[in-house]
């Protein structure tokens, strides 16, 4: 079952895609990840993790409508 979700791009992922935000349709985070990297091959060199609704994802997860997925390159605060 596919759902429409918001995807946010941060840091180097923002620069690689030229986008801050985009809407995608996917059933789970594994397929979403594939869809996004197919559309933006430049993301392949960035070792990003995903957050789902502001929580860092440890394992893949099913998606529901209006979920917010964030593409998070390694943090660089400090």
């Amino acid at each position, binding site marked *: 079952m596919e759902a429409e979700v918001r995807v946010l791009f*941060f840091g180097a992922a*923002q*620069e690689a895609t030229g986008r801050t935000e985009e809407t995608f349709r996917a059933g789970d985070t594994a397929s979403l990840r594939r869809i996004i990297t197919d559309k933006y091959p430049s993301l392949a060199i960035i070792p990003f993790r995903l957050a789902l609704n502001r929580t860092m994802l440890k394992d893949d997860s099913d998606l529901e409508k209006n979920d917010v997925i964030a593409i998070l*390159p390694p*943090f660089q*605060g*400090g």
Partner: protein
Amino acid sequence: MKNRFLVGGPITPLLISELMTLGSDDNGTGAVSVFIGKVRDDETDGKRVKAIEYSAYEDMVIKEADEIIRTVRSAFSDVRTVMIVHSVGIVKAGEASLFIMVTSGHRDQGTRGCRHTLEMVKEKLPVWKKEIY
């Protein structure tokens, strides 16, 4: 301040002194440990850093910073308050981009709690930087 944990631009000496005053009206505090992170004018490939532009996933910063503070307070029972402020936007070389303050009854847990907060900020706060030359 954009929210409790983020400020637009550098953390100025004035803001630092205001934040340090906030944590100081508690006569049970015997130790105040502060860490300030500053932008260095490092040189890479013959180019010198003039500034760093920080960006953040602001909603998640709030969640993660709250979680860091909870963790530090439960790991160090002598710790009384934990404060975390990070910059977003442009911070020039020589200016501060991170402020951490931990107050405690005694020095041991305060200094260790401050260092622990700092390590967790580095590891968990969704903040990114871009060098400007």
